[in-house]
């Protein structure tokens, strides 16, 4: 057997296709797994993630639901407790607010309230974020809210590899796992390494090593942050970029080890600053590694407004590469 025959070819694919392949593989592998949500079957998914899957896997396993978020999210929790492994797709994080009661009061609490008699092995996936001129009610980044809740795990795959491989460990986890997919990532293409067949849902990853400053981010802001790091390199500043991947529980060890090397930290988050994930990360660094810091922590976050419709206003409200560059340069150069 030749070496070339046994090594699968690297394959270029979109984030959307990676999500789809993950769902298909999980459903084929385990009869307990099914996906339900609004317009996932006949419409093919609001972002076309599940396009064609209902025809292939059947409408029992790719199940269209009415526009009843509290109903079908609660039903997913019940089905999980009864032995299934549901993937509940909420069209967007904005609509998840209608199901907040079920997620926070049931999914996150039942294991604890029952003294460990029941677990809720459930995956809830949803799109998140702004950038498509969808205005205030369709542009929220509320993953940080969910990361506030004990009893939940929260994932934010940013890369095609994570989009392809985070679902299975999420389904294998005995706890409710929320997966946030940033809307601006679905069309992103990358080459999937066929030798990587699994990833963890525990650790943050250094996406770009650097010695001068640590840039911590996740999800939709990862690529803006990587662009910023490239721009900083032109100035002779080597930025280390950390992709959190997992928003709860946070892998602070990776963040703090990086800050201990670079001694400077910028946090980039599309969520608002007030009472946020970025505030949490900054606080933990201050609590646990204050004396490692040579400079104040800076945050590049969404401006504190409902995200507006007009393109120039929307862009002004969101974290941008130039702002990340400016924040990092300011810390390194003392400006």
């Amino acid at each position, binding site marked *: 057997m030749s070496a070339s025959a046994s090594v699968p070819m690297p394959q270029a694919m979109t984030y959307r296709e990676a999500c789809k392949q993950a769902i298909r593989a999980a459903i084929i592998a385990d009869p307990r797994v099914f996906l339900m949500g609004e317009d996932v079957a006949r419409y093919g998914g609001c972002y076309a993630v599940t396009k064609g899957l209902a025809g292939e896997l059947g409408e029992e396993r790719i199940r269209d639901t009415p526009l*009843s978020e509290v*109903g079908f999210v609660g039903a997913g929790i019940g089905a999980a407790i009864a032995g299934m492994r549901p993937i509940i797709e909420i069209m967007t994080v904005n609509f998840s607010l209608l199901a907040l009661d079920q997620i926070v009061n049931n999914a996150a609490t039942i*294991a604890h309230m029952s003294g460990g008699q029941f*677990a809720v092995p459930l995956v809830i996936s949803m799109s998140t974020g702004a950038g498509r001129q969808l205005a205030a009610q369709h542009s929220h980044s509320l993953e940080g809210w969910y990361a506030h809740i*004990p009893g939940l795990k929260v994932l934010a795959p940013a890369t095609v590899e994570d989009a392809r491989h985070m679902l299975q460990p999420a389904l294998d986890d005995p*706890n409710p796992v929320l997966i946030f997919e940033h809307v601006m990532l679905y069309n992103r293409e990358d080459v999937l390494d066929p030798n990587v067949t699994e990833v963890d849902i525990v650790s943050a990853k250094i996406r770009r090593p650097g010695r001068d400053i640590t840039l911590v981010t996740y999800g939709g802001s990862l690529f803006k942050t990587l662009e910023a790091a490239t721009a900083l390199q032109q100035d002779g500043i080597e930025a280390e970029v950390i992709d959190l991947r997992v928003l709860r529980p946070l892998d602070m060890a990776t963040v703090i080890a990086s800050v201990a090397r670079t001694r400077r930290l910028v946090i980039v988050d599309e969520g608002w600053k007030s009472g946020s994930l970025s505030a949490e990360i900054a606080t933990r660094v201050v609590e646990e590694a204050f004396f490692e810091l040579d400079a104040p922590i800076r945050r590049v976050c969404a401006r504190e407004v409902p995200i507006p419709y007009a393109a120039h206003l929307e862009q002004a409200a969101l974290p941008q590469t130039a702002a990340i560059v400016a924040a990092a340069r300011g810390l390194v150069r003392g400006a």
Partner: protein
Amino acid sequence: MTEKVHLDHAHGRSLLTSMLRIRRFEEKCFELYQSEKIRGFMHLYDGEEAVSVGIIAALRPEDAIVATYREHGQALARGIGMDALMAELYGKQQGCCRGRGGSMHVFSRAARFYGGNAIVAGGLPLAVGIAMGDKMQGRNAVTACFFGDGAVDEGAFHESMNLASLWNLPVLFVCENNLYAMGMALERAEAETDIARKAAGYRVASEAVDGMNVVAAEVAARRAIAQIRETGKPFLLECRTYRFRAHSMFDAQLYRSKEEIETWRKKDPVQQLQSWLQQAGLLHADEIARIEADIAAEIDAAVAFAEAGTWEPVEDLERFTLMDKVPQ
């Protein structure tokens, strides 16, 4: 096929015993609350016992139950041990939820008892999902979902009725209509106060039954469950009942009159059955006295068990927040 209810000596005795156990257990809970052995919110079921006893008598062991924060009655009727329940109310680690749930969150894996939900209507979507999970795994089980008239005000009720009907799920929706959602009277909350009628909007079969009459409740439940097992479709049973005591331990009952409460007390489900059984010659006073004595002994033992119980070590505070594996 509908299973008939034969109200013979044994069955009459069993129904009465089951209701009396709940009544006397909760009388003790009231005392223990006054003496601060039980804390938090506690909602007593006094007056509504016929509903849980009648309906749960019609369930099989493989069936599932979802209940509300007023669920001591369902828990006892379903066979959750009085010891473990009392220890839970004490907050002891020997409690059925190791003291993490308390009065409003009773769970039992062995009894397929899925809480104890303290969000009004929060259990209904869960019940739909449990029925869905059972159906998808080929289990021939019914999920009985108890909720109050207040739940009908919530969107979750309407979404759940629709989903259960749309997807042909074996859910017995049991509305315990006691006329008040805390202090909010049904006629002040609902434009259509006939709750059973609402089912028609979801093509769900329904029936209203006298919830003060345990035999009527059981007969209706057996008929409804037989229909669910035959058709695979949900059913809404509205049980018209009344709670004699306050909503919780912090309720001055400004919203209803003493006369109204007294009128309903005349329909006391425990008294009704007891009188009927005695008049029919099915149960004699001395046997009732023995039942009462047995229950008193059981309650004393439960209190002793709870008193002797121990506190979960504080080091284990975070245990079960995230699970290491799915319990089987």
